[in-house]
């Protein structure tokens, strides 16, 4: 026990004395979160649109004003011919063109129906979709107002409610996603270099020739970084709540416990990498490049997992970020309790245990 304690103290000293690395490790998540939290967004704000309106009557004018007044759109141009729309799209001047049919108001009054065409630039599919969706929402709102005044006998009103995130804020998706990425990359990197560093410095020889047990070395290496990881979790959560406006609907204690488990999982992964490699560069490369892509692709944060081909869905089951991302969303945004996330938690706990045991097993007590 004495030996183990001495090892833990040693590891804390290593971490605390390397001031520069410590600043990077604490500072990096803050910068990444700010960068991604604000820059990464699939919301549509102030999209430029053009209007093709040959009738220029009361109704079309009202609709144009409504579109312009909404915070999603700015009407930048009025055009007279449909061909001009093409040119605008090609020059990238507008995201969409709203085309009112000729004699709009008259047609509407006489036939009780009039058409609006929405031309959207779908070269960027997501934005195109969103813009078209928002425009039709503005138009539908106006239509409902008309209906209320007229009292028609039958009318089917479709009302869509976006549960948990009524304003469709992209931060609700991106912030948990970025949290997952930051924690797995940072924490696995921290421990990935920890053991291999001693191999490079030559201090490992002295440890190997002593009667130290592998588990002591491994567990002692993980402890200071667990503290660092939890510190990062605290900073990220506070920033997400205060600056990025994310809700904390579920139990804070549960959230912190799940974050702690995920940090431990990432640290174990790093330790496993560290026992298997012989240079810091290789360890760093594996933990950064090797983890970045699968973590991003298979977490479900950028690309919906349900849409992936079956084999890839199977692969996603071994990617730990998938489970943590789902837990984060459930607890933070939906406010669900432990009974809804126990399965994911159990999987993560098992992964941690297996990786830890693998790390201890592959810790060579002899040189090669």
């Amino acid at each position: 026990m004495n030996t183990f304690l001495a090892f833990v103290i040693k590891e804390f000293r290593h971490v605390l004395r390397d001031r520069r690395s410590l600043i990077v490790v604490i500072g990096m998540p803050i910068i990444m979160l700010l960068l991604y939290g604000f820059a990464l967004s699939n919301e549509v704000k102030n999209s430029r649109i053009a209007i093709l309106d040959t009738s220029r009557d009361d109704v079309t004018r009202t609709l144009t004003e409504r579109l312009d007044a909404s915070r999603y759109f700015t009407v930048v141009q009025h055009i007279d011919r449909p061909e001009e729309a093409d040119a605008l799209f090609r020059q990238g001047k507008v995201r969409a063109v709203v085309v009112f049919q000729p004699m709009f108001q008259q047609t509407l009054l006489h036939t009780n129906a009039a058409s609006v065409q929405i031309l959207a630039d779908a070269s960027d599919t997501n934005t195109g979709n969103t813009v078209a969706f928002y425009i039709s929402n503005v138009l539908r709102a106006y239509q409902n107002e008309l209906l209320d005044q007229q009292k028609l006998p039958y009318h089917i009103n479709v009302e869509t409610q976006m549960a948990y995130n009524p304003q469709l804020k992209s931060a609700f998706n991106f912030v948990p996603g970025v949290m997952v990425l930051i924690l797995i990359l940072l924490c696995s990197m921290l421990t990935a270099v920890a053991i291999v560093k001693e191999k490079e410095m030559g201090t490992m020889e002295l440890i190997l020739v002593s009667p130290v047990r592998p588990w002591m070395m491994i567990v002692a290496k993980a402890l200071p970084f667990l503290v660092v990881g939890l510190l990062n979790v605290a900073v990220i959560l506070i920033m997400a709540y205060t600056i990025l406006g994310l809700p904390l609907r579920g139990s804070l204690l549960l959230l912190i416990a799940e974050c702690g488990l995920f940090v431990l999982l990432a640290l174990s992964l790093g330790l496993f990498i560290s026992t298997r490699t012989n240079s810091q560069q290789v360890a760093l490369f594996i933990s950064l490049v090797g983890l970045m892509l699968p973590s991003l692709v298979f977490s479900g944060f950028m690309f919906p997992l349900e849409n992936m081909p079956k084999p890839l869905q199977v692969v996603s089951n071994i990617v730990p970020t998938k489970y943590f991302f789902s837990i984060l969303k459930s607890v933070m945004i939906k406010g669900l309790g432990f009974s809804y996330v126990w399965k994911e938690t159990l999987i993560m706990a098992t992964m941690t245990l297996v990786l830890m045991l693998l790390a201890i097993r592959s810790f060579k007590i002899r040189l090669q």
Partner: protein
Amino acid sequence: MKKIIETQGLTRTFGAFTAVDAISFDVYEGEIFGFLGANGAGKTTAMKMLSGLLAPSGGSATVVGFDVKTQSEDIKKQIGYMSQRFSLYEDLTVLENIHLFGSIYGLKKAELAQKAEVLLEQLEFTDQRNTLVGDLPLGWKQKLSFSVAMLHEPRLVFLDEPTGGVDPITRRQFWEMIYAAAHKGATVFVTTHYMDEAEYCDRVSIMVDGKIAALDTPHNLKRQFNAPDMNDVFLQLAATSVARAGF
């Protein structure tokens, strides 16, 4: 005399290359045993096998009564080891390194504190106790490294080129420390490149191409090879290796 190291046909290969080729020798309790050889002759490999760091490919060896193949963990508790590369923790202070390695070898707190004081006193390091080891001059580091290896009073200590790159005065002091340890009953197994240091050893073995080419007291070796000093003995043996390699 009691044997502390016994080897029989000890061999280590790395792929097709045989680094240590069936060496057999004994080391007796309490002696200073010099382990000489040119670079690449297999000294460090042999030493690593004896200290339990490296598994042998063939042959057998017992160290402090334990088999190096199956009982390396028992050996580790009984020996001290100082590596060719300086390997205390550079970002820990002198005292912190002493405490860490003392704890690794299971010294109790009070015992460790008292030993640390004695050690600092002897090395005249009392003022440097809180200096980071990375800031010490090389010679000081080596002396500290040796003292740390002796902290748990091992019966046998392996020193791998302990005085490499160190000035003559510090080398002299270093050998005084080795004598002091031997005087207290420790067996010292030391590799070196300095032939004057070979003269300080009780017995000397010279390795050439993975084999032991000669093993005796410095006095007998000089007589056997009709050489004025150990340097000449070494050159005569090394020359046979160079001739065989076809240079």
